[in-house]
């Protein structure tokens, strides 16, 4: 089996609205695929197609080489954004419940969540809850992980720890499909897929996606006036400390600033992933 998950030309409509439109996607064993897109881009519908919760209207959706079903669901570990834990049960009870649902027996709690064994899940801090949800999803040794915003709200150290677990599972041969709004998290993935209006508009490594994309970097003592001028002029402009970065053309920006009598050094610098993403999503004409 070459792919754990595969869609070819997958299409799903709701009435007249096409939520997913001709999407090709593959996840190989050991590979972490990041799925990016603004809200409403079709990420959640695509995941529901893959989990077998919705059938496609057109195209092919395969999990482990076959149509999604109850038997393929057993081989998937899924962590929704809402975590899917029972807040009123303890960590141990959640663990046992999931084990029973998947037909498993008395596995020991993993070391990192064992100290919280007797605590109610709802009383744990969010980072700990996410760690528990991830451990529970891994408990039946899934071949494919589907993770929706796995580190949202947990901070730099908590994210690093959760990604250790994701990488460890991938190292042992599992594939992972990760949706995220966080570009640091996206950079942890092996490959990325960017969706706009139900279609894939960009795909590749983070390096592929930022390649050839530049932004203008503006350094000036009069940064607050320069910011207001560019912002009013309709340039997408962001403040980094007292440096400005903008997706506009450096020559145009230079001209505008010098007309206003603002002395500034304007340079073209490589775009970061967030800037590349915003440029791709904001300009659907580039499709």
């Amino acid at each position, binding site marked *: 089996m070459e792919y754990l998950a595969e869609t070819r030309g997958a299409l799903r409509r709701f009435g007249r609205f096409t939520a997913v439109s001709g999407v090709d996607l593959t996840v190989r064993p050991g590979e972490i695929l990041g799925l990016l897109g603004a809200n409403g881009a079709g990420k959640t519908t695509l995941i529901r197609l893959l989990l077998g919760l919705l059938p496609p209207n057109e195209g092919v959706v395969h999990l482990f080489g076959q149509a999604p079903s109850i038997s393929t669901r057993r081989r998937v570990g899924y962590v929704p954004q809402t975590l899917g834990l029972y807040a009123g049960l303890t960590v141990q009870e959640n663990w046992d419940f999931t084990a029973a649902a998947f037909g498993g027996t008395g596995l020991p709690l993993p070391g990192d969540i064992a100290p919280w064994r007797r605590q109610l899940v709802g009383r744990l801090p969010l980072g700990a809850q996410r760690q528990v949800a991830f451990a529970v999803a891994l408990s039946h040794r899934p071949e494919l992980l589907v993770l929706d915003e796995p580190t949202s709200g947990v901070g730099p150290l908590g994210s690093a720890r959760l990604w250790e677990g994701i990488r460890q599972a991938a190292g042992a041969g599992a594939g992972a499909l990760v949706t995220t709004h966080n570009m640091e998290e996206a950079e942890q993935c092996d490959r990325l897929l960017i969706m706009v209006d139900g279609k894939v508009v960009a795909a590749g490594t983070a390096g592929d996606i930022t390649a050839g994309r530049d932004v203008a970097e503006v350094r000036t003592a009069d940064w*607050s006036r320069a910011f207001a001028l560019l912002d009013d002029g309709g340039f997408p402009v962001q403040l980094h400390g007292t440096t400005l970065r903008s997706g506009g053309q450096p020559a145009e920006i230079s001209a505008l600033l010098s007309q206003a009598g603002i002395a500034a050094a304007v340079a073209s610098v490589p775009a970061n992933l967030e800037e590349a993403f915003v440029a791709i999503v904001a300009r659907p004409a580039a499709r």
Partner: protein
Amino acid sequence: MRWGLRKVTVTRGHTNALADVTVPVDPSGVTVVVGGDGAGKSTCLQVLVGLLQPTKGTVLCPPKEGIGYVPATAGLYADLTVQENLDFAATAYRLAARDYRQRAGELLEQTGLGPARRRLGGQLSGGMQRKLAVAMSLLHAPALLVLDEPTTGVDPVSRAELWRLISAAAAGGTAVAVSTTYVNEAARAALVVLLEGGKTAASGTPAQILDGFPGRLGVLDGAERPAPLSWRRGVAWRVWAPDGALPAGARPVTPDFEDAVVAAALAGQQSAQSAQRSGQKG
């Protein structure tokens, strides 16, 4: 420092929610308070706007009418429309009708919420709700703007729009304090305060925090965690040697801001754990 916290401690029961934390917030600048859940970010901002009294320390803040504050969870009325929410905020701040009309018009345009002005707050997407809440907090042109995790869970396009609003406020002279869990948002601040377990794990400009990275950083491959002071970055491990002695086989790399933040948070966590252990022994 014009506004902010100086050596503030907040005690709850037997524990310190904040311990000796200093957060300067100056006009025309964005101070970012970064950390995980439970690090003390919200407590910090609540003290700054006067919702919580510190046990010790000094709070410098303008009078109430000079503060704009958006808490992490709400900041708008779900059963009022966008327009009604803005009207309400204007009434609460006793804005003159003419000032209000002009300011609300500008903010509706900046946020792109104009076409949605008749929609109920509760029916907006998460990103639009955050933009509306920030717009409401900016209506009265506050001297100090305080935003608690305005971008958590928000998609990158809405995040860019929110940061444009935040940047525009700073460019207009407002002092801004923002909390976040995202390192790349801290990287764009004029000043960063990293909190871990209620304590300051690092503070300064992003460049100062990076320059202050102690010891050396290496890269190692492998399935198992190579050392306690290590974390995953993509496929490989980052191994941090505060004393400069990298383990055998580690390739030295130049740390970036994200490495510096993770290392400082890790050091903060370790010192808290060892303090706890020695406390238990004693």
